[in-house]
Every structure is written in C-alpha cells, then in structure tokens.
C-alpha cells in the first residue's frame, strides 16, 4: 500500500504534474472559449500528489516549516475549491430610489452546493455620484443607500471604490458600469398605472449611443434616446449625477415618427399615455459571496510565513555544507 502511495507522492510526479497546470493556465488565458474550471483538473491531481507526499515523504518530517508550507498550500487549494462550490456571483443594476431585488441579479456563478441567494429587499438605492478628473478619468464613486434594519428601522450608508457594502455575507461593489435612467409614468386607457425606469447604456463610455427601446403595456415598441443639454467637456473636472441634468427623451414610434419629451411632459400612445417623470442614475453592482475567502487568505498568508521560515532554516540557519547539497553534486560533475 505505502509504496504505491509513495509513488503517488513522488517529487518527480509533482514536477511532471506542474507542467499540465502551467499549460492549462496558459491556455485559459489565451483561449476565450476555454473555461477556467479546467484548471481544477491538474490542481486536483497536484493536490492528490501533495497529500500522498505529505503522508510518505520523510523530508517533510525533517523540515516542519516545509511541511507547514505544503499543508497551507493544500489548504488554499481545498478551501478555494470548497469556496467555488458555494460561490455566488452576479451583477445587478439599481436605479436611484429602487429597492434591491435579488431575483433581478444576473448570475455569473452559482456554486453547485449553494442553496440560495441573498434575501431581498435589504436596501434601497439612494444618490449616486461619480467624480471625473480632466481627461475623463474616473475618480471617486459614491453610492448612498438606505439599509433595512430590525423593527423597520433603516440606516444610511455610503460606499464606493474603496469601501464595499456587505450584508449577510453578500458583498456589493460599485463598478464602472453606470449611467442614466429615464423614469417613466404610464397611465393606461384601462386605468392601469405603471411607474418604471428605462436604463440607458453606460455613461460616459457610451455617450454617443444613449438609446434603448421599450414595449409599452399597449403593445407598441418604442425607441427612446436620451438627449442631454450639455455634453461632457473632457478637458474639465466633472461630476456625473442626475441632479441638474437638463434633458429630453426622443421617442421614436413604430411608424418612424418622433417626439421629444422633457421632464413632466406626456405623449399619447396606443393604449395609454406616457409621461417622462424624471432622470435618475443607475449603478451596476457586482454581488458576490464566498464563505471560504477569508480562510483562503489566512491559509495563503500562513503558507508564505512557513515558506519564509523554511528558506531561512535552509539557507541562513545552517552551515553552508547543507546549503550546497543540491548544487554541489552538480558542480562536482562539471568541474
């Protein structure tokens, strides 16, 4: 039994298994079509090799710091793997005044063993501002929110580039993806009333195509284009915010006719009346949760500490005879 485990934990096998890992990492970086999960295969094989080596390799018993480094490295691999099974990752866009709705999160990762996502609503989006330096360089992003508390109490919080918001283990991070949203009021001929927002593309990145479309409750598909009175002066410092923005919304009807509506102006359409209520900002958030992340971090730091200890013992805390062991034999061969 042990000889086969020893073979499984051989250092030569380690070196050989590192090659496919290197190749897979390289391939993942070069081929968009290749899923990064493929890296898990050589990593798992290396993990098995490492476990067998820890069990059988006498060098680990002689060098406790080296053992600690490899155990921590194994812990990083295992914890990162477990974390991936419970990972929650997604994006959501929130308009000023809108409550967070977990069902609207566009998931990019939902771990196999994860049971559920965040509860909602947990907070309501407040004011969004983004400062720009001359040259259209994004500076500070500020997002104000009202967070639901116990017994109906709410608390105001602000977060942005350097401070994320974490609620019940879910982290909300602001992103570069943000823009304007037209708040529309619809009164149907049947008396139905709707209030909603149409998000325009990210601003100022897509300043040149602030367009979107919407199918009204009356069944008409209309085009909407945001026309701002002032364009961005790239040479000046500037603040992106909804306050004080003069705008019109250009409505394009299915027959090609157009109309321009300012704040509070209405247009009669098939099945009802559309009013442009106001212009607000929307922010694209990244929402993520990984219960293992802090433990991966701790294991990684411990592995570095153990590695430092090992090299100290190997190179500085012993006589040079031991130090030159590996290289010395080769020198004997060449000299």
């Amino acid at each position: 039994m042990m000889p086969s485990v020893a073979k499984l934990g051989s250092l030569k096998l380690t070196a050989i298994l590192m090659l496919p890992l290197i190749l897979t990492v390289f391939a993942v970086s070069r081929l968009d079509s290749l899923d990064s999960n493929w890296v898990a295969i050589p990593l798992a094989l290396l993990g098995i090799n490492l476990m067998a080596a820890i069990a059988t390799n006498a060098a680990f018993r002689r060098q406790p710091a080296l053992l600690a480094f490899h155990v921590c490295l194994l812990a990083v691999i295992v914890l990162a793997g477990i974390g991936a099974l419970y990972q929650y990752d997604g994006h959501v866009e929130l308009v000023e005044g809108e409550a967070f709705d977990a069902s609207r999160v566009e998931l990019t990762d939902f771990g196999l063993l994860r049971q559920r996502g965040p509860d909602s609503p947990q907070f309501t989006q407040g004011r969004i501002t983004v400062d720009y330096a001359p040259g259209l360089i994004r500076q500070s992003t500020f997002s104000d929110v009202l967070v639901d508390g116990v017994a109906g109490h709410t608390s105001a919080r602000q977060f942005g580039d350097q401070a994320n918001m974490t609620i019940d283990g879910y982290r909300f991070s602001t992103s570069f993806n943000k823009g304007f949203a037209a708040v529309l009021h619809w009164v149907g001929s049947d008396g139905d009333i709707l209030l909603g927002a149409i998000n325009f593309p990210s601003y100022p990145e897509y300043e040149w195509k602030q367009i979107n479309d919407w199918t009204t409750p009356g069944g008409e598909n209309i085009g909407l284009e945001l026309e701002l009175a002032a364009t961005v002066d790239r040479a000046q410092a500037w603040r992106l915010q909804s306050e004080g923005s003069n705008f019109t919304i250009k409505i394009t009807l299915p027959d090609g006719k157009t109309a321009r509506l300012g704040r509070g102006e209405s247009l009669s359409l098939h099945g009802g009346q559309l009013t442009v209520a106001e212009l607000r900002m929307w922010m694209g958030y990244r929402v993520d949760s990984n219960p293992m992340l802090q433990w991966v971090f701790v294991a990684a730091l411990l592995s570095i500490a153990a590695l430092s200890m090992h090299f100290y013992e190997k190179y500085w805390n012993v006589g040079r005879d031991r130090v030159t062991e590996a290289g010395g034999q080769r020198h004997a061969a060449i000299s």
Partner: protein
Amino acid sequence: MPLSAETERLLLILLVVTFAVASLASILVPQSDKRKAIVVPGIITIALVLAAAAIAVRWVREDQGPFLTLYDVLLSNLFSLAFVYLAVYLLVREMRPAAIVVMPVLLLLGLWLVRVPAEAIPLPATYDNYWLWLHVISGKLFFGLCLAAASGATLLMVGTVRDSRPADAPAMRSTDVAVWRLMSMAFICQSFMLVAGAVWAHSAWGRYWAWDSLETWALLTWLVLALLLHVRITFKQLSIAYLWAGVVLVFALAFLTFLGVPFVSIAPHKGVM
C-alpha cells in the same frame, strides 16, 4: 521650475549616463582591487539618488505615485532594481561580478524610458489602497531579486561554456548558492505579491481573480519558479546549466509580466471609464 518636466528629463538623462558609466565600471574596474571596491556601488548609489529625485519631482508635480503608465513603471523599476541590486551587491559578495550583466540591463531600460511618452494619467480611485502598496513593493522586490539572480546565473552559464573545466569551481559553487538564495527570496516576495494583488483586486473591482492577462502571467511566472525549485531538488542528475537557464527564463517571464503584458492588455489593471 525645479519640479518641471524639464528637470525630470534632465535627471533622467543624467540617470542614463550614470548607468552607462556603471556599465563601463563594472567591466573595467577589477572586483579584486579593494582600493577600487567603492567605485561600482558608489556609481549605483548616485544612480539611485538621481532616480529617486526624478520620481520625487514627478510625484510632487503630478500629485500621484508612479504606478500607471509604462513611463511610471519603467522609472520606478529603475529605482527599485538598482536599489535591490545595490543591497545584494553589498550583502552578497558572490553577486558582485553580476554587475557586469545588471548594469547594462538597467542602461537599456533607461534608454527605453527616454523614448517613452512621459504624459501622466490620473490614477483611478481604486488605486488608493494600501494593499496596492504591499502588492507593488513585494512585486518590485521579486523583480529585483530575479534580475540579480538571473545575472548571476548568466555569468555562471558563460563561465561554464567558456571553460569546460572551470578553474574556480568553489567560487562558482558559492555563486550558485547565492543565486538560489535570491530565487528563494524572490519566490517568497512573488507569493506575497500575488496574495496582496488578489486582496487589492477584491477591494478595487469586487473580484480577487479574473484571469486577466497580468494576473495570469504573474501566476505563470510563479508556477515556473515553483517548478524550477522542485526540479532542482528532484532531478539531481540534470545538468546545472539547465537550472541556470531556468533562472534566466523566470526573469524573462517576470520581465514580460511587469513591462510587457500590462501595456498590451486591456483596462483591468489601468482603470476604466
């Protein structure tokens, strides 16, 4: 006026000239001459002062550190590489002959820097984070240690090729040990660089790893270095020259990661609108 772009340019040209002088001195001044032992480290110290002054002038004028553009990265690396090598030169006697490789490399980087546009780009807000400092400092230590080790390995390779029966085998052996000590320290620094970078990325962009080009190449460099350290221990029958070549390969990968990939890949490490 003292903090103007012209002052910075002048300091830069003086820096390049100093590296040229250091390159010549490393070739012409015999290492064994104790009376002249101060020459090479003295010139490197002058270069360090000039590089620090150029960085300070730029930092005060632009009100931000040298983190973002190729110019910034080259300038700060000229300082950090010279700083790390000076420390190695003073502390590790066996690595002193490596100046003959290190100084021309720094001279070439300096000549490259002179040709690079110096315009500053304001730092994105996400760069205002102390994890970035830890990430950058550990990265620069790694790069500097790699340069010193690769220069030592290059000399060892040249010495082996030139003389199939090296007359000075004990000296080669101690240089070889010094090379691996430096690579071990480089491995520690790079490991910390990756961890600190992941924490910074998590704070700055909401993800700790995203397989962007810079992250991937940094990981590849770490993996190749880890492989090299394993191979050295495991395959004892392998010619040591291959291991020295491996050290140079790790430096080449690090060079590509630090000074190539960030400037041909898209936005993630630069900030976006």
